[in-house]
């Protein structure tokens, strides 16, 4: 493998990792507030559809991204209604949300399949894009990619340095303590669901506005589920989530280039690589005892009047 191909591989890694990064970060925020939302796939594909639709109607990619985030957040709030108001099972509700989102996007999107849009176009960041290696790898992409670089640090700052972020994380660890401190853990969980779903939706927007510039069914193709696994891989930490997203994206980009260079490894095995890697990473992390870093109250509903 020559140097040029290697640099191109790293650039492709960033592009493949970006939608995973948004979706993983979104689910991470939701889970840190104590809510398990398995509806990532459904919210992500609806985000992709909202983004496509608004882009198609208005031609404004920023408005489209906002619509994707808000639309996905509204879908996420359905999960909140089931789990926070009616105390429903979080796992079941999340799965239902995925089925609902995938089905609804197919139904609403049917008339638009194959329609193309402009969306975001790549632009080079002045000066930074001229740096050898780092330039082509990080600074010759779409605006949504650049925004995603800041996201892990912004989320980390929010969790650690703002009282709202601390209360949100505390609601995932010990809702009773939050209650005792005079705050409302349910309200924090609403926030966790909405904010998390917003970023999941933006991850979907990346797919229809940057990656493909079009609408078709099954645009997410399981990426939402990968994000759910990546949250565990990341031990619920924002920066590790970024690493996980790029590792996963990198493996996907690598296997395509390995095929192109010529290999005798069967393509079915190559396709398994990212998933095999996920299983290995999960095994490795739980063997080291760090896999138990899940928020203590994750998936547990807060009983009313507690």
């Amino acid at each position, binding site marked *: 493998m020559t140097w040029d191909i290697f640099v191109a591989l790293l650039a492709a890694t960033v592009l493949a990792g970006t939608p995973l990064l948004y979706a993983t970060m979104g689910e991470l925020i939701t889970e840190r507030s104590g809510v398990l939302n398995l509806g990532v796939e459904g919210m992500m594909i609806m985000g992709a559809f909202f983004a496509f639709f608004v882009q198609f109607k208005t031609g404004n990619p920023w408005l489209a991204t906002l619509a994707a985030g808000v639309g996905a957040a509204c879908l996420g709030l359905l999960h909140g209604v089931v789990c926070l108001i009616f105390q429903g099972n979080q796992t079941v509700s999340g799965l239902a949300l*995925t089925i609902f989102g995938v*089905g609804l996007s197919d139904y609403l999107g049917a008339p638009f399949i194959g329609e193309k849009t402009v969306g975001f176009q790549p632009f080079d960041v002045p000066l930074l894009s001229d740096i050898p290696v780092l330039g082509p790898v990080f600074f010759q992409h779409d605006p949504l990619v650049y925004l995603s670089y800041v996201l892990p640090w912004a989320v980390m700052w929010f969790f650690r340095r703002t009282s709202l972020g601390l209360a949100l994380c505390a609601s995932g660890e010990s809702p009773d303590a939050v209650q005792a401190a005079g705050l409302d853990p349910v309200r924090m969980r609403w926030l966790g669901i909405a904010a998390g779903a917003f970023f999941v939706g933006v991850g979907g927007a990346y797919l229809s506005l940057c*990656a*493909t510039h079009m609408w078709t069914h*099954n645009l997410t193709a399981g990426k939402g589920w990968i994000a759910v696994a990546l949250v565990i891989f990341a031990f619920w930490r924002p920066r590790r989530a970024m690493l996980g997203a790029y590792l996963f994206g990198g493996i996907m980009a690598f296997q395509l280039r390995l095929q192109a*260079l010529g290999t005798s490894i069967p393509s079915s095995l190559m396709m398994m690589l990212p998933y095999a890697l996920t299983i290995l990473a999960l095994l490795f992390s739980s063997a080291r005892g760090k896999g138990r870093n899940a928020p203590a109250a994750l998936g547990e509903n807060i009983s009313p009047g507690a």
Partner: protein
Amino acid sequence: MRFLNYAAACAAVIGMAISPLVSSAYAEESAKIKVGFIYVSPVGDEGWSWTHEQGRQMMEAMPDVETTMMESVPEGPDAERAIKNMCAKGYNVIVATSFGYMDAMVKMAKRNPDITFLHCSGYKHSKNMTCYFGRMYQARYLTGMVAGSMTKKNEIGYVAPFPIPEVVRGINAFTLGVRAVNPEAKVRVVWTRTWYSPDDEKKAAEGLLDVGVDVIAQHQDSASPQTAAEARGAYSVGYNTDMSSAAPKAHLVAAVWDWTKFYKKFIDEYRAGTWKNGNYWYGIGDGIVDISRYGDMVPADVRAKVDAVKADIVSGKYQVFTGPVRDQEGKVRVPEGQVASDDALLSMDWFVEGVIGTTK
């Protein structure tokens, strides 16, 4: 997770698909020939299902034919239910255009001897069931000649869906065409294991372009390999339909289907009572497979050369897979002076010399 997607898709599709069927059940009985089509993908994708939909719309325009269609019907139990439904609604002819519908079609054909079943891309047929397909490899050979003439780096990329004989045969014919005009050129294959996934297919094309190919060919239904080629200033070869609108500056030529000719022939003979069920494999001479118009960048001498070979294939003077054909290891698979049999073509699981990749 795939299952969930399918479950969701099924729920949406069945809901949409049942309503027109239910309403048509109350329509007046007429003497019209009723033809029902079942597609595996949405029609709007301008791919495989779209090429068959052109045939349905042509029939629908005939005064004595009434048609319906169901799109995005998953292979498996849903397909059988869809076929059964059409049988119950009094359809005379049922057309299903995906390989995975085969066993459901066979089963329903046995139970409904008065209904004619047309199944595209399978291999089972009976007294009231026809299997039909096209010799797309002939068009692939011609598009390979164009690609081989236009490559400057002598490196061509092929974005391929699944390693099955139909696809392997296409890659081999394409490569034989490439090397007929450019013996130095190589064809690099990347499998996506998707029939229609614009994002995956775009990424596969980009992987090939990173490695240094300057022409991209494809077998999937999405045009995203074409747009990926255009974005990097490379050339592209389309499939299914003329994909030049997706990549006007890159699109050299496409290997295309024209199923309207088949459906016209079928409905005329069915109406006259002369249609015979069987196994049909149509070639470029029947007009069912062809190549699209050339992109403006293809020079006149290349066009003339390709058109001459096309005429020879139509007249039967030349056949693709005429020996000697060597495989990747250099072993002679088709001896000099012989032509690969249809059986050999239908079970092809090896790559010809000049392909870089694996059939596994």
